[in-house]
């Protein structure tokens, strides 16, 4: 019986620990095979760079309010214009990217880690632990993720760190289920049985033999989830529950005021909107390329 995880990429063909290859060779091959993926990686790199070095790049303090220049059109002192309080849009977009990416990446890292551990243990040990985990996952998957995120934000209160918790929580169940499915298959594989027969402790078998073989689907799913996370951060911002102002994030820069004044001052919404969409687009393309590369069944198809 197949569970609720059609996107699951089960490395059915992978019957032993993945062989290591030289990094640069692999990268070169990746770029040749997936030009779109390579471009996406470059775009993403640029975005990450701009976000990481937001402080030196920004022409202005993103919090500084210039009341002589409220909602000013791009040009002159403010290359991308200013917002309703006279703050520089370019600087806020750069800092906003930092916030949005930090939140999304932190949430995905936390959610992936938790989901992986839960999935590994649940799949490896089975029994009552598995039963409980699966029922909890059932419950959580019966709820649309945005509703769960909203309820969590209401419970935790709108703080930036809570956005991370909420997004992390909603990706855990799906991930745990997929990892569990992979582990269930691996558990029966000869090399795992061999490792156990040779007296490998549970921890060692999990770490050395099972985890590495679940990495491919985890990476693919985490990349997918990352694009979702950036959008959820923005959606929570739309609903007024996201990152706390005045800290800029792409999400809150796109919320009420930007939409309210879109016609009069499109420069308030366009830069964060375009930056966000471009980033998500790049993550998706990269995810797609990674999936083709890491999914052994498709690799076979590639030949």
């Amino acid at each position: 019986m197949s569970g609720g995880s059609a996107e699951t990429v089960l490395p059915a063909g992978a019957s032993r620990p993945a062989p290591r290859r030289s990094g640069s060779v692999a990268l070169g091959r990746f770029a040749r095979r997936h030009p779109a993926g390579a471009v996406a990686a470059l775009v993403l790199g640029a975005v990450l760079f701009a976000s990481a070095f937001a402080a030196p790049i920004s022409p202005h303090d993103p919090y500084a309010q210039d009341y002589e220049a409220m909602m000013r059109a791009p040009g002159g002192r403010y290359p991308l214009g200013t917002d309703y309080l006279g703050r520089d849009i370019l600087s806020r977009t750069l800092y906003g990217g930092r916030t949005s990416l930090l939140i999304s990446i932190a949430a995905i890292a936390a959610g992936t880690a938790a989901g992986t551990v839960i999935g590994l243990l649940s799949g490896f040990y089975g029994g009552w632990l598995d039963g409980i985990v699966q029922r909890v996952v059932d419950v959580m998957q019966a709820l649309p993720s945005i509703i769960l995120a909203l309820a969590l934000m209401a419970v935790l209160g709108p703080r930036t760190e809570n956005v991370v918790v909420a997004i992390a929580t909603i990706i855990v169940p799906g991930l745990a289920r997929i990892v569990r499915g992979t582990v269930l298959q691996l558990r029966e594989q000869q090399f795992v049985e061999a490792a156990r027969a040779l007296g490998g402790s549970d921890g060692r078998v999990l770490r050395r033999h099972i985890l590495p073989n679940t990495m491919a689907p985890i990476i693919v799913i985490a990349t997918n989830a990352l694009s979702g996370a950036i959008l959820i951060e923005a959606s929570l911002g739309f609903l007024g529950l996201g990152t706390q102002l005045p800290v800029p994030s792409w999400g809150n820069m796109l919320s009420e005021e930007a939409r309210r004044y879109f016609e009069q001052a499109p420069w308030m919404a366009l830069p964060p909107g375009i930056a966000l969409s471009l980033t998500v687009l790049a993550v998706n393309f990269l995810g797609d390329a990674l999936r083709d590369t890491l999914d052994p069944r498709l690799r076979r198809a590639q030949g």
Partner: protein
Amino acid sequence: MRQFLLRRLILGGAALLGLSLLAFGLVRIIPGDAVMAQLAESGNVSDLAAARAQLGLDRPFAVQYVTWLGGVVRGDLGTSFWSKRPVMEDLLAALPVSVELAVIAMLLSMLVALPLGAAAASHRGGGVDLGARLLSFGGLSVPHFWIATLVLLYGSIWFRWVPPLGYVPPGESLTQNLEQFMIPAAILGLHLSARSLRLVRSSLLEALQEDYIRTAWAKGLRGGRVLWGHALRNALIPILTILGGQFTYLLSGSVIIEDIFSLSGIGRYVVESITHRDYPAVQGAILFTGLVVIGVNLAIDLAYAWADPRIRYQ
């Protein structure tokens, strides 16, 4: 088969019970309680305890839960704290809106995903492949509220047109109903199509590698027939599963689209009820959504059997 059904029903029931407990507990730990939310802007609260008692909130948690659950079993989801209307009635009014939005969005997304996914799979790595992905990823990458705002704004400026306001049931006026749902469903559909397209593409690619497809090729069948007749049917299973997931997502996850296009579906209802700390409404809506989702997933499992005769449930 019967045993499988029974097992799924029991598991579904267990999930619902868990969901009921989760919903019941969750609303009660949200800071700011129902009584406070009702008092609007005045500080004039002479007897807060009385107000709580009036809503039955003074009783122990377990008693409240069991009382509520007892009602649920009898098909009574309770009365809204906020509007004093039966929760079931409001949910049944919201359901058609959400379901119609979800179904049209899924149809539209399949309309995009199937042909484009098939084209992308048969011209792998070519221009069609890239173009299809660019289109669908584009839909996936731009936030809903962003596209929706632009469509409304420029629709109203350039064409002096926005979709009709408020839900019009198809029975009342089918054209108005469709005029109303087309744009929001298209925005959601475009978003969904990215995932479906990718899945159609990879499932087809995979299916095309299977031995029976190679046999079909070898038998001299033409490309189109192989693709549509054999490969696609095989690719149907993962597509069905993703449809189930999409339905869950759309049922109340399209809250932002509902907001902007003024469609009062289930998502809207949940969000508003959370704002009002309307416990019975939140609990009812979550449980109701869960019931629909579990039902749909069960239906999908059954559909597998139809789509793939190799699957026999034990």
